[in-house]
């Protein structure tokens, strides 16, 4: 069993109440930070810890915090991005549901570090029941003097609000989130200016993922250096992984970064192997927007080394033979799954969720979905594969926000690694559209 930073007490009955949470060492970091540390010292600890953004991009959190502009007389804001809606990702909702005070403690400590006196948790609209849990926990914290004016007699004031979104995936993009939080249509903004300079209500703002913020209390309590000891290289600390797909034990696991992928899939401590004794076909290691990898490339890198659950190892080989850590949504496919169908499913999602602001994404996502739909349903042409590659390339990098890239990458990667499966679909439409039909060519090649 590895070190549990976020989930140590998560299964304690009643941990969602303030009383039980405090009994298990809750809100110690607030006391320590507010009474004994300056905001700069907290930022410094987070920098030392090497904590990286857990929402997907993996940008060092301490660095992001230090970029925050600090003009005189302008309020600063901390916004927690709880708009978790990437297909395959369910760690934040699980964490907030089980341990709302963990997030609130992180919000108080982080807001103190950034000098924010008003902070927001922007939560996905579908998670209304979690919003109620959070509101209840916030009310408890207000009553105990952990929020509001003069927290714990330190002279520091903080108001924390929970704001529900309308359930749009695009509002997980930080500038679209801020627009939505301001009450406008959730369109991503053009950057620069970045939120650290002009964010919420045109004031300097930091937007962090739930998991990032919830890791801060442990760092404050135990020191950034202690956190940096966990993990490998620049991937420090622990990460929540939402494991799903054709595995024996789907669920959320907290791992120390650096666990080998093979161990993560097959050990009983984690996924417990592929279900029904089947073979592994492919893995999407970081949520639907990162490139899919076939079994041979997910277990070993192109150089033949063991692939580890770290930011660096998962992206080893670039997009040619690697993928990304993303938000840590580990989706496993067994031999009976059809990659074409899955790719179509993903692109249907991005087509539906594109905000429609900039032309390559608005038109391109729909185009890819239609072509993939055709291939999956037995009406594809041979040139469609190259067409998809070309359209994906036309979207990538030309859009305002990363949704365009997120839509293009899975399609490009699926064709890169499973081109023969696409070709089989086009050449043998009758077999491919039969119920339960799956192309096995590549698997046989792997086992041979």
């Amino acid at each position: 069993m590895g070190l549990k930073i976020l989930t140590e007490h998560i299964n304690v009955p009643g941990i969602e109440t303030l009383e039980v949470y405090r009994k298990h060492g809750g809100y110690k970091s607030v006391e320590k930070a507010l009474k004994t540390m300056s905001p700069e010292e907290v930022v410094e600890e987070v920098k030392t810890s090497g904590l990286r953004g857990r929402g997907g991009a993996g940008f060092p959190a301490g660095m992001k915090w230090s970029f925050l502009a600090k003009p005189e007389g302008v309020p600063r804001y901390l916004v927690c991005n709880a708009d978790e809606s990437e297909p395959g990702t369910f760690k934040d909702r699980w964490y907030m549901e089980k341990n709302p005070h963990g997030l609130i403690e992180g919000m108080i400590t982080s807001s103190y570090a950034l000098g924010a006196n008003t902070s927001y948790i922007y939560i996905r609209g579908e998670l209304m029941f979690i919003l109620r849990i959070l509101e209840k926990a916030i009310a408890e914290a207000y009553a105990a003097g952990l929020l509001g004016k003069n927290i714990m007699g330190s002279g520091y004031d903080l108001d924390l609000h929970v704001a529900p979104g309308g359930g749009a995936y695009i509002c997980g993009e930080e500038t679209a989130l801020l627009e939505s939080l301001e009450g406008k249509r959730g369109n991503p903004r053009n950057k620069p200016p970045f939120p650290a300079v002009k964010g919420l209500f045109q004031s300097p703002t930091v937007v962090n993922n739930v998991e990032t913020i919830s890791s801060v209390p442990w760092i404050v309590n135990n020191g950034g250096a202690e956190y940096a000891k966990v993990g490998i290289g620049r991937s420090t600390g622990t990460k929540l992984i939402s494991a799903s797909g054709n595995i024996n034990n789907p669920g959320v696991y907290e791992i120390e970064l650096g666990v080998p992928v093979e161990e993560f899939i097959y050990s009983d401590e984690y996924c417990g192997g592929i279900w029904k004794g089947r073979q592994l076909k492919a893995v999407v290691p970081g949520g639907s927007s990162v490139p899919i990898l076939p079994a041979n490339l997910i277990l070993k890198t192109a150089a033949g080394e063991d692939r580890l659950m770290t930011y660096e190892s998962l992206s080893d080989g670039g997009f040619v033979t690697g993928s990304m850590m993303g938000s840590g949504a580990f989706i496993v496919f067994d031999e009976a799954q059809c990659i074409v169908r899955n790719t179509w499913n993903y692109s249907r999602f991005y087509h539906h969720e594109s905000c429609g602001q900039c032309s390559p994404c608005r038109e391109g996502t729909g185009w890819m979905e239609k072509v993939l739909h055709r291939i999956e349903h037995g009406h594809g042409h041979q040139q469609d594969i190259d067409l998809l590659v070309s359209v994906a390339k036309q979207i990538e990098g030309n859009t305002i926000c990363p949704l365009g890239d997120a839509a293009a990458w899975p399609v490009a990667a699926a064709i890169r690694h499973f081109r023969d499966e696409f070709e089989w679909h086009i050449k043998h439409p009758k077999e491919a559209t039969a119920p339960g039909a799956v192309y096995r060519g590549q698997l046989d090649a792997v086992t041979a």
Partner: protein
Amino acid sequence: MAKVTIDGIEIEVEDGTTILQAARKIGGKIVPPAMCYYGPLKGSGGKCRVCLVKVTQGSAKDTRPMPKLVASCITHVQDGMVVENTTNEEVLNARKSIVEMLLINHPLDCPICDQAGECSLQDLSYEHGVSAQRFEEERRTFNKVDLGPYIQLHMTRCILCYRCVYTADQITEKRVHGVLGRGDAAEIGTYIENVVDNDFSGNVIDVCPVGALTDKTWRFKNRVWFTKPLDAHRDCPTCSGKVTLWTRGEEVLRVTARKDQYNEVEEFICNTCRFDKKETSDWTIEGPRHIDSSSVISANHYELPVLNVPIVPNLPVSTKKNLPQE
């Protein structure tokens, strides 16, 4: 002041100028096209992505290139910045891709579209488009919507530049239309059904780069290249009264604001001038409006009249013999 080099041409501009504005100062072929950016409207731009350019040197201090192509209409120049537009293969390819994307759901009904001849998308496709079509699916369609007595909305043609939204926000008191829906189902609409009705509502027609918003007093009256543009003015209590009249013979077919070569209006005009004053007697005519000679609009009236050409020129002698002699 900042020195910036665009396609090898150096120019000095004020700080805070965008790359596009700097390029327009140089003028000519190196100006990136713009479908959503509109000078007079604050906050416009960055959406259509046709103005993408490559910054090969960020500034004199930081000589690294920018990793991605940037939208020139919203990117500010830095001293020592080097920009490539028409000289960069990557930029031209990206532009071609984006034109293709803009056209896949466009109905291409130019033969019956009132905007034809003065349509930015038409010009853009002519210059950067490809003749082949790779999109074989059904196009997205919408029903036509009446936005009050003067304006008709053809959502099928819209490229979602948001210009009309900014116009209504910035020059009228209350905006009643906006973008509804998301992705390629996004549409301009008045939620639920409303009339766009105020003194300056007609300007959304002028800012529309395509034929999505059309003037109902002009629809199907004539093709724009058959009409003659004349600068004219009148004493108007609500606006400047400086307009362009589009005439055929004695008839005033249409009134628009005066637009420059980038289709940007000089001054917004009011609905009375635009829709109600359709007599030449309403106006003091200043003279013909200059139209760029490359525009199709100039095709019919800026050529010299053809005089004294023999009706039967250079026919063979045998044919001439058989013609009735004078």
